[in-house]
Structures are given as structure tokens and as C-alpha cells.
């Protein structure tokens, strides 16, 4: 017996979950050999797999993978060696997903999932098993819901899902999966991979046999390569490339040096694309040094100094101090030695042996002192010509062979793109910064404040970005934003200089029409047009340096003017859109009010029509009481209609500003008493009027209407026996009269309070058309006064009416 399943011999090593710690090997293979006739399917395989580890076994067809699986699973015995599975007590030691799945075709999904475990589930209800099966499938997102289907009716993928569900639900410490995802969709495969890595994290040991190297590299902690029954390598996926694994599997050695170079280059490219631009050049330098096996390497960048171009060293590796000092700044041309020559010619310059090189004269001593015998310098050529050089020094003499030359130019190319990328990003981010701050400023334009603040802030950002000392902007015809008048915004950031305000404004006002792209006006001045539809905008900037604006500043000004124009345009559109939306909303409200009114009007009309036609029926004779009731109802309903129609007429008069008042000197106390007598329970209403209350110039009947509405409202909302208090007093030093109507009801919910003066909103139990408060407000406003809802637990309304109408507010009534 070569196989021993040792079950839970030391409870002390198990954790709370009963799982072994990750240090404990769960599978141990020692010198396992399996022969089929003369063929050695496995030849002395030793392998140890710990809990919390996924070990992938890869190999070509016939390498012995499936035999290995069978040996581990105990499906076949090894001829030599030992297979040991150390499982926790009470758990099945191994569970396997066979390559051929090993399902029983004539059983359903549930039976297959619990196959071989019936004895432990014998007492379980069928329904419970089905739901457990479903759960096992759902764990990796299987769409298979019919767990009572026979597995031979399922697709290959579904069958694989069943096999997986079976293996994953046993709770075994060791999972052996032979091509577990071969038939699954990409999506399901990803789910399985997630579940496997969860199981690994939970301390299971997993042996994964797979052809799919991507899967192996994504999941495995170790990769064991099997070839001709032997383990030929055990590698970590972090350290090797999948090509290397493929090479190990096939046994075909690939040219390793070239592969290394390629891998190195590949990793450089990956690092470069992820690296911070400032770090990319040093990266290229060190990669180049590694690729060429060169100890001393440096990069020079071309610097357009006023007195001619210079090569400035920007990155170096391994340079001795003397050499470093010397190569810090080098002239272009032969005077710059190898470096200057390479830059001047735009070609690789090589010196095989420093001692017989005239071009190196200037640096001969230092170079020799530094122990340099040979060197090369390659130009870094970007899209606009030579950007700099990359130079290598060597302590030994020797030729730079063709391969290495190619590598040098390859890395020089990478350096060029790294440099250009860095410059581009630098440029873009500088611009972005300005444009971003412009955008942020312009966002404030969309706010409720006047636009000047936003425009000034935008100009300030622009000034800073341009390096200008002052800037101005003139907007005309942009009524949506500036309200009709031309608007001039100006900003000075230079403290010492006197304000450029008048000069710039004068220039803007006398500027010819049709300025679009930025123009230099000379003497440190530039002007640009803002292409705003329907209006015009001009942007001006003034620099201290008369040579400004340079090309960059002009371009920046162009960018800025365009984004300003876009922002202004967006703002205009947004305002137009908001207006349109408000108009639509008001139309919608009108439609709703009309619809509501038509219903409100039809109800009394239906009753009147109904009673009248009831009485008219020739074949029925009603008793006198019924007739009395019908007629009374007709009267009541007619009054209801009259009131509705009155409200409707009032509200449309208010809406269209046609409400006519017949004002006279009016005693508010009398009005309040009259209103009180009209409400259902006058005794509940307490009226308190200040002794010195002046008479006001108002329409008595309309005011009565106002207070009848408010009092009725208060009586209705004040609870069954609620009291209503009305107080009136002079305010504003006797210029106005304030009337407060409060009830002790529950108050008005805030959500309703906001809309309470709009037509149609009305509380439960109201019989009006919902226009009452809108009319109250309309009448108060027609008097030059106002009505407010006073916040607080008890709803109260405050009516403020002027004693006399303000000047110019004479009513024509």
C-alpha cells in the first residue's frame, strides 16, 4: 500500500475552522512512479502542497498529469513511492474534478452533486438537498437552475459546472482539479478563479492541472512543470514568463540571451507606460545599462542656451566623480568629444580604444584617470530632431558589435519617446492647469451670483498662466449673462505698474470687428476674440516684457479664449434651458389646474343636473320631503358652483393682472368681524385689534374675502374644537398694518408649505377649488401688501397691508 490517508492525527494544529494552518503540508508525494507496461507515466515525482496554496501542474499531453491526478485521488496505486494526504478529521480527504468529469449521466444534478455522500445525507429532505445543490452552483454564479434535470441533458459547460459544484461542496482539504474550466465561458471561468482563490485563502490546498497558462499564472502560487513523467521545474509565476514555462513544457530551449533582452525590453516598456514621466529617463538609463551590461552610462539633453546649444547631463549611472564633473555640460560638435560629435552628426559615435582617439582629446586625461578605455555615444532623435545623447563608457577596450549597436539605438529610441512624452505631459499639464482653473472659475458663472466675480477669477487665472501683468475682457450683446449692457472686466496682478485699465479698455472699445485668433499688438500687448454666438467678446492681455507674447503665450491665449467662449455659451444655453423648463412647468401647472377645476365644476353640476332630471321624470311622483331635499341640494350645489366660478374668475383676474379694486378708507376691525361672521364656527375665532390701528386704503369686500379664506382655513385645520386667534396691529412705524391669523392645529408640513400659495394644493377636507390661498395672496399683492406663512408648529398666516399705496402704485379701480 503506497498510499496513506492520515486523518487528523494532531488536533492541535487545526485552527478554529478545523483547517490546518498554511504551514502544514496537506499533500505529500515522495518518489512516486507509475508504469503502464514499459511506459513510465510518472517517474520519481516528489511534490508537497500546503494548505493555503495553489500549485499548478502543467505539461504537454502525455506528460503524466492525469496519472498524477489519479494517484493523488487514490484512483490508482503508485508502483513505487508514497502519496500521503493529511486531512482533518471528519472531512473527506480529497475531492477531484476529473477531466472527463465523472458524472452519472442517468442521475439528476442534485444526485450527482451529492454522489458518494448519500450516507451522510440520508436523512436530509429532498428539498434541502436541492436547495444545497443550487447554492453550490450559485457559489460561482452558475445559471443552472433546474437541479432536477438529468445531467445527460445538460451542455458540456453545465456538466462541468456540476462537477465543480460537487468538488467544491465536499469541504475536502485538498482539491484536485483536472482542467476544471476547459468548457466554461470566460465569465464563469473568472468566477471559478475567484472561488478557487477564496478557497486557497480559507486554507485549502489546491492542485490545478491546466493547459491554460493565463489561468495558471493568474492563480498559482507555484508552477510545477511535468515532462515525460518527471518534474523538470518548479517555478514561481512572479519570476518567469509564460513563454519560459511553455519552453520548459516542450523541452525546446529558446535562445536565452535574446529572450532575456526581449523580456527586459518588455518590462521596460511596461514600466515606462506606468512610470511618472520624470522617472522615465532614469528608468531608460538603468534598463540600458542592464541590457548592455554596461557599468557607466549617462544621458545628455540638448539645451538651447542663448550662446548656442549645449548638452546637459540629466541622468547617469556608475560615473566616477571626475568623469561626472567633466561631462556635466558639453558643447555640441567635435569640441564636445564623443558626446558632442554624436549629437552634432545625429549618428552613433564609437571609440573602441580611447588611447588612439583624437576626438576624445579634451577629455582624454579625465577619462583615462577614470579608467575608461572605450566608449560610445548614440544620439537620441525625437520627432523634431536630436534631443540629446546616450553615452556608455567601459573600462575595457573592445568593439561594439552589431547586436549591441542595435540595442543601443533601440534604447536611444526609448529614451527619445520618454523625453518627448515627459515634455508633452509637462506642456499639457501646464495648459491643463490653467484651463482647469478657468473652468472652475467659470463654473461659478452658473451660480446664482452675478457673473463678475467668476469672470474676474477666470481672468486672474489666465493672467497667471500667461505670465501677463494685466488682462481685460469686454463682452457685448451677451444679454443672458450680462443683462444687456456691455460688460468690462479687468484684472491687474502687477503691484508696481500703474493700472492698464484705461489702455486695455480703450483698445477693446476701438478694436475692429471680427477679431478671432489672438493677435500680437506689439509692445507686450495681445488681443483675442471670443467666438460667442449672438454677441462679441474680446480678451486683452498686457505683459511687462515687450517681446511677449511668445508663441506659447499666443497658443495659450487661443486655448483660453476658446474655452472661455465655450463656457459662456454653455452658460447661455443653460440659462435658456432653465427658462424653457420653467415655462413648461408653468404650462403643466396650468393644465393640471384646469383639469382639476373641470372635475371640481362637474361635481356640483352633476348633482344639480341629476336632481333636476330626477324631478322631471314624468313617470315618478316623489314625496314632498324628497322634493324638499332635492331642491335644497340644488341650492347648496349652485352656491358651491358659484363660489368655484367666482374663485376661478378672481384667480384668472389676478393671473392676468386685471384684478380691480374699489378702494376706500377701510376699518380693518370691521373687515375682520365681517369675515368672522361668515365662517362655520364664529365663536371659535377670537379677534384682537390694537386700539391705535389706523384705517387703510383698501377694498373692503376684497379684504373680507381674504380673511374669510384664511379664517375658514384656520377653523378647518385647527382641530375639532380648535380656537383661532386673529390679531391686528400697526407696524413699520404706522405705515403698514399686520394681521396674524393662527390656529392651534398640527401645522403645515414643510413640503406643503413651500407650495401652499400655488393654485390647487389643498388639504384634506377642503371643498374649494384649491385656489383660496392663491387668491388671498393675489388680493394682498394687488393692495401692495403681502401674505406669508409663518414657520412654527402652529400654522399661522401673516398679512401685511400698507396704510396707503406707495407712490406710483395707484390702483385704477
Amino acid at each position, binding site marked *: 500500500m503506497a498510499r496513506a490517508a492520515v486523518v487528523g492525527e494532531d488536533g492541535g494544529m487545526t485552527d478554529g475552522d478545523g483547517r490546518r494552518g498554511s504551514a502544514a503540508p496537506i499533500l505529500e508525494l515522495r518518489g512516486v512512479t507509475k508504469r503502464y507496461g514499459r511506459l513510465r507515466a510518472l517517474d520519481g515525482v516528489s511534490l508537497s502542497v500546503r494548505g493555503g496554496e495553489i500549485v499548478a501542474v502543467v505539461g504537454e499531453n502525455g506528460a503524466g498529469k492525469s496519472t498524477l491526478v489519479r494517484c493523488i485521488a487514490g484512483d490508482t496505486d503508485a508502483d513505487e513511492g508514497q502519496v500521503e494526504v493529511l486531512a482533518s478529521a471528519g472531512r473527506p480527504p480529497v475531492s477531484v474534478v476529473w477531466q472527463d468529469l465523472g458524472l452519472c449521466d442517468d442521475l439528476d444534478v442534485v444526485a450527482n452533486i451529492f454522489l458518494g455522500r448519500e450516507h451522510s445525507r440520508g436523512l436530509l429532505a429532498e428539498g434541502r438537498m436541492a436547495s444545497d445543490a443550487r447554492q453550490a452552483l450559485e457559489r460561482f454564479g452558475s445559471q443552472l437552475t433546474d437541479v432536477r434535470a438529468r445531467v445527460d441533458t445538460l451542455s458540456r459547460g453545465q456538466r462541468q459546472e456540476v462537477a465543480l459544484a460537487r468538488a467544491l461542496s465536499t469541504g475536502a482539504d485538498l482539491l484536485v482539479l483536472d482542467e476544471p474550466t476547459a468548457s466554461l465561458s470566460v465569465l464563469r471561468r473568472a468566477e471559478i478563479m475567484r472561488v478557487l482563490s477564496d478557497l486557497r485563502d480559507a486554507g485549502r490546498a489546491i492542485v490545478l492541472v491546466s493547459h491554460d497558462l493565463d489561468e495558471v499564472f493568474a492563480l498559482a502560487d507555484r508552477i510545477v512543470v511535468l515532462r515525460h513523467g518527471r518534474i523538470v521545474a518548479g517555478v514561481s509565476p512572479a519570476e518567469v514568463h509564460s513563454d519560459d514555462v511553455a519552453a520548459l513544457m516542450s523541452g525546446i530551449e529558446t535562445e536565452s540571451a535574446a529572450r532575456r533582452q526581449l523580456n527586459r525590453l518588455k518590462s521596460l516598456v511596461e514600466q515606462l507606460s506606468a512610470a511618472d514621466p520624470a522617472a522615465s529617463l532614469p528608468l531608460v538609463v538603468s534598463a540600458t545599462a542592464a541590457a548592455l551590461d554596461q557599468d557607466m552610462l549617462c544621458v545628455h539633453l540638448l539645451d538651447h542656451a542663448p550662446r548656442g546649444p549645449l548638452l546637459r547631463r540629466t541622468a547617469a549611472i556608475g560615473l566616477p566623480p571626475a568623469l561626472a564633473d567633466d561631462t556635466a555640460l558639453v558643447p555640441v560638435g567635435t569640441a564636445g568629444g564623443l558626446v558632442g560629435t554624436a549629437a552634432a552628426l545625429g549618428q552613433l559615435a564609437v571609440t573602441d580604444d580611447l588611447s588612439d582617439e583624437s576626438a576624445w582629446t579634451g577629455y582624454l586625461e579625465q577619462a583615462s584617470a577614470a579608467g575608461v578605455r572605450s566608449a560610445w555615444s548614440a544620439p537620441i532623435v525625437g520627432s523634431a530632431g536630436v534631443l540629446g545623447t546616450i553615452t556608455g563608457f567601459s573600462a575595457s577596450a573592445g568593439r561594439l558589435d552589431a547586436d549591441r549597436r542595435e540595442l543601443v539605438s533601440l534604447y536611444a529610441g526609448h529614451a527619445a519617446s520618454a523625453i518627448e512624452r515627459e515634455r508633452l505631459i509637462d506642456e499639457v499639464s501646464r495648459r491643463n492647469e490653467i484651463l482647469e482653473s478657468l473652468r472652475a472659475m467659470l463654473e461659478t458663472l452658473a451660480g446664482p451670483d452675478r457673473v463678475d466675480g467668476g469672470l474676474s477669477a477666470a481672468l486672474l487665472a489666465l493672467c497667471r498662466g500667461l505670465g501677463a501683468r494685466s488682462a481685460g475682457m469686454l463682452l457685448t450683446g451677451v444679454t443672458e449673462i450680462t443683462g444687456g449692457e456691455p460688460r468690462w472686466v479687468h484684472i491687474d496682478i502687477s503691484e508696481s505698474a500703474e493700472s492698464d485699465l484705461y489702455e486695455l479698455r480703450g483698445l477693446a472699445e476701438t478694436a475692429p470687428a471680427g477679431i478671432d485668433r489672438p493677435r500680437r499688438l506689439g509692445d507686450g500687448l495681445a488681443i483675442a476674440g471670443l467666438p460667442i454666438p449672438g454677441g462679441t467678446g474680446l480678451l486683452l492681455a498686457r505683459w511687462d516684457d515687450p517681446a511677449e507674447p511668445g508663441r506659447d503665450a499666443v497658443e495659450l491665449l487661443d486655448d483660453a479664449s476658446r474655452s472661455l467662449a465655450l463656457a459662456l455659451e454653455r452658460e447661455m444655453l443653460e440659462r435658456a434651458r432653465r427658462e424653457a423648463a420653467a415655462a413648461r412647468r408653468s404650462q403643466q401647472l396650468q393644465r393640471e389646474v384646469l383639469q382639476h377645476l373641470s372635475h371640481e365644476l362637474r361635481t356640483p353640476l352633476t*348633482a344639480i343636473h341629476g336632481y333636476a332630471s330626477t324631478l322631471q321624470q314624468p313617470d315618478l311622483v316623489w314625496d314632498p320631503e324628497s322634493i324638499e331635499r332635492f331642491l335644497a341640494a340644488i341650492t347648496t350645489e349652485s352656491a358651491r358652483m358659484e363660489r368655484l366660478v367666482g374663485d376661478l374668475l378672481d384667480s384668472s383676474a389676478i393671473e392676468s393682472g386685471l384684478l380691480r379694486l374699489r378702494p376706500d378708507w377701510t376699518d380693518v376691525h370691521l373687515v375682520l368681524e365681517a369675515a368672522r361672521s361668515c365662517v362655520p364656527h364664529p365663536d371659535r375665532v377670537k379677534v384682537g385689534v390694537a386700539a391705535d390701528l389706523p384705517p387703510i386704503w383698501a377694498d373692503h369686500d376684497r379684504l373680507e374675502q381674504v380673511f374669510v379664506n384664511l379664517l375658514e382655513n384656520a377653523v378647518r385645520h385647527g382641530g375639532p374644537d380648535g380656537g383661532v386667534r386673529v390679531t391686528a396691529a400697526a407696524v413699520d412705524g404706522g405705515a403698514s398694518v399686520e394681521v396674524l391669523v393662527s390656529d392651534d392645529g398640527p401645522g403645515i408640513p414643510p413640503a406643503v408649505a413651500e407650495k401652499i400659495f400655488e393654485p390647487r394644493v389643498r388639504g384634506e377636507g377642503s371643498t374649494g377649488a384649491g385656489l383660496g390661498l392663491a387668491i388671498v395672496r393675489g388680493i394682498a399683492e394687488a393692495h401692495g401688501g403681502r401674505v406669508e406663512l409663518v414657520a412654527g408648529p402652529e400654522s399661522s398666516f401673516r398679512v401685511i397691508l400698507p396704510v396707503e399705496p406707495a407712490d406710483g402704485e395707484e390702483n385704477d379701480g
Partner: protein
Amino acid sequence: MAEAPGVLIVEDDRIIVDVLRSNLTARGYRVVVSIDGSDVLRLLDEAAPDVVLLDLMLPGRDGFDLCWAVRDRSDVGIIVLSARRGETDKVRALNLGADDYLTKPFGIEELLARVNAMLRRARPAEPRLVAPQVRVGDVRIDFDAQLVTKGGKRVHLTRTEYALLRELAMHPGRLLSHAELLRRVWGPGYETQTEYTRVYVGRLRAKLEGPDGTELIVTEPRAGYRFTTDG
């Protein structure tokens, strides 16, 4: 008459309830009232009305939902009372199972006439001279038993649906105009309410015509309908 016909009034305005109740009671109907619609289903079971008068605008309740709930539970005649005059409201109510739609304000004579028409539709058909059974494809109409089956299974039809199907099936192949159908099924005065026939033919098709495309009722554009002669 075994028992007086019953009317369930669902209406929140007490004045309108009073006028309806006074008249219906005076004409010998049993009347039950639901003020807010919450007890409609219970009253349907308890009072077993023959006709429901349903106001669409109930406080805190969607009349359309209620209409559907009533139809879902019973094939009682439903007459909707509504202040909404739009055709869309009318078609919507019919689609939800209403048999008739009366716009407010209405005269009492008109209401009584419609209630009578509704009850007449519910009464057994008068003797006729056609075969007691019609069979088209897998649909069988048994006029004696007032039973309709499709593929051997009973199809549940409301009274109005059955009355319309009967009119059509009794005259296979003959073009029946909208007005003719409306007068015969709904009663005199309905001749212009073509949305009634449109909606109800649609309901019949949905219940009886299979997905295989067996066409039971043929539309004659702008004229009316024709019951198929196939089968």
C-alpha cells in the same frame, strides 16, 4: 323576477350618491354604496350586485386600479362615471374591463337607460335561428350553455365580451358595422362610440385568437367587423 337587480355605487361625493340612490331605489333596485372604494371588493361578494357605478376620481385611490380589481374578481357590469372626457381615459377604462363610460354631468334618464342596457346584456339571449354551436379552429362557442372554449379549455368572458362575440358569431361572414354592433350589444344611443367596439374586439382577440394567427374576427377598415367563415 327572483330578486331585484343590485347596483353598487362607488362615489365619494355624498350629494351625487344621494341623487343616484334616490332614483335607483325608487325604480326598485337594491343599492349599496362605497364612499371611498376601500370596501368595494367586500361589497362585491356580499351584495352580489349586477352593476357597479364607479367614480374614477376617488380621494387617495386610483379609480383605474379599482376598475381593474373589480373586473379581475367578477364579470359584473361596470359603468364608469367620470368627469374626464378625454378619449384616452375612456379607452383606458374600457381596456381595464369597464363595460360603459358615462361622463359627468349626466341626466338621470341616461344613467337609468345605461343601467338597464347593462342588465339586458346580462340576461339570457333571445331564441335565434342559427346552430347552437359555432366552431372555428380550436375555438368553440356553445350558445345554449353560453360557454366558450379554446383548445378544450374554458375561456372566461365578461358579459359584454360574450354579448359582442355572440353578435359576431351568429352572423359568420357578414359585415357588421360598428353602429350595428354598438346598438345590439350596448343599446340604442351608443352608435357613435366606436372605441367601445375597438377595445372589446381587441379583448376578444386577445382571449381567443392564438399566437398561430388564427383570425377569428376580421377588421373591415372604417366599416366594422366580420366573423370568419373558416372552420
